[in-house]
């Protein structure tokens, strides 16, 4: 018996989904999804609630946190308003994230400030279109290499460097939309190379406090409704 469940394109679930097996959401779920298996949110799929599973792949929209015990991948077109926690994480170019990002359970690196991102990845001009989900890791390596070369010249002017991603590690808030890609890339580049590149001067080893929470973005689940009847 196949254990693959599908919420079809015209289907709406108002309530929580739990259990074992894989689940593909092409329609809409207004509630939390807790699954021992892999959850896939298709390009037109919507989840207004959190997702917790072994593996999660998002190409659609999630308004809520996403926790993956194993791997989490955001594909182009994904739109997540909520925190991401996963042992392995991949964010493709064209995916949008508003929330904090944390990798845990895997081999964590010492500069975990790099992991806290409030950024619109769709403005990321560093990634190539064909980039696999592992591209996030590659970008981090690039930035570390720039730091080793003296912090870069601002605006990604060093000959081998591609423009850095708009990570804005300590920015209190980021406009969630309407950031022109070119200005976002250059302004974040200067912030990147001047402001945030001195973790060794901080005794705690971290760069400033964790990024402040943006109320409108982490409020959680907008428009979510719990079933008011039909329950035990």
């Amino acid at each position, binding site marked *: *018996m196949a254990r*693959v*469940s*599908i919420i079809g*394109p015209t289907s709406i679930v108002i309530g*929580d989904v*739990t*259990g074992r097996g894989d689940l593909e959401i092409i329609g809409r779920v207004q509630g939390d999804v807790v699954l021992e298996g892999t959850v896939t949110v298709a390009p037109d799929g919507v989840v207004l609630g959190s997702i917790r599973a072994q593996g999660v792949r998002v190409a659609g929209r999630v308004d809520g946190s996403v926790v993956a015990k194993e791997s989490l991948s955001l594909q182009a077109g994904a739109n997540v308003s909520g925190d991401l926690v996963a042992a392995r994480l991949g964010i493709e170019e064209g995916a949008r994230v508003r929330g904090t990002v944390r990798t845990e359970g895997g081999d964590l690196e010492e500069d975990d400030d790099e992991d806290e991102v409030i950024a619109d990845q769709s403005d990321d001009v560093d990634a190539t279109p064909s980039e696999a989900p592992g591209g996030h890791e590659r970008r981090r390596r690039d930035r570390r290499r720039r730091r080793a070369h003296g912090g870069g010249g601002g605006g990604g002017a060093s000959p081998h460097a591609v423009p850095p991603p708009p990570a804005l590690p300590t920015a209190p808030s980021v406009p969630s939309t309407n950031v022109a890609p070119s200005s976002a890339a250059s302004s974040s580049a200067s912030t990147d190379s001047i402001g945030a590149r001195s973790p060794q001067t901080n005794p705690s080893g971290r760069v400033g406090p964790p990024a402040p929470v943006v109320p409108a973005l982490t409020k959680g689940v907008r428009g979510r409704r719990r079933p008011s009847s*039909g*329950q035990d």
Partner: protein
Amino acid sequence: MSSTIIASELTIEGDLTSEDDVHIEGRVRGRVTTKGSVELGSRGAVEADVSGRTVSVAGSVTANVTATERVDLLAGGRLVGDVKAPRLTIADGATFRGKVDMGD
């Protein structure tokens, strides 16, 4: 091929609505409403009202069932609740307790 499938180890704690066919092998603790057909497999269970164009029950329904075309209660199926549909079949070996309304 149903457009929506609730597999055997999945539980929905709430309502499911759709425009297309729904196949349930798992458990829905809420209403199931679709404009297509509802197929409740032998391991499926629904604990609130079911309505669709056609509804076939090989599993368990503990609520009212409404269909615009037909309801088929298959062998091994169990239905405790009222049925409202122009056509109803009950297979040998099915369990049914409730009222039937087949219209005029």
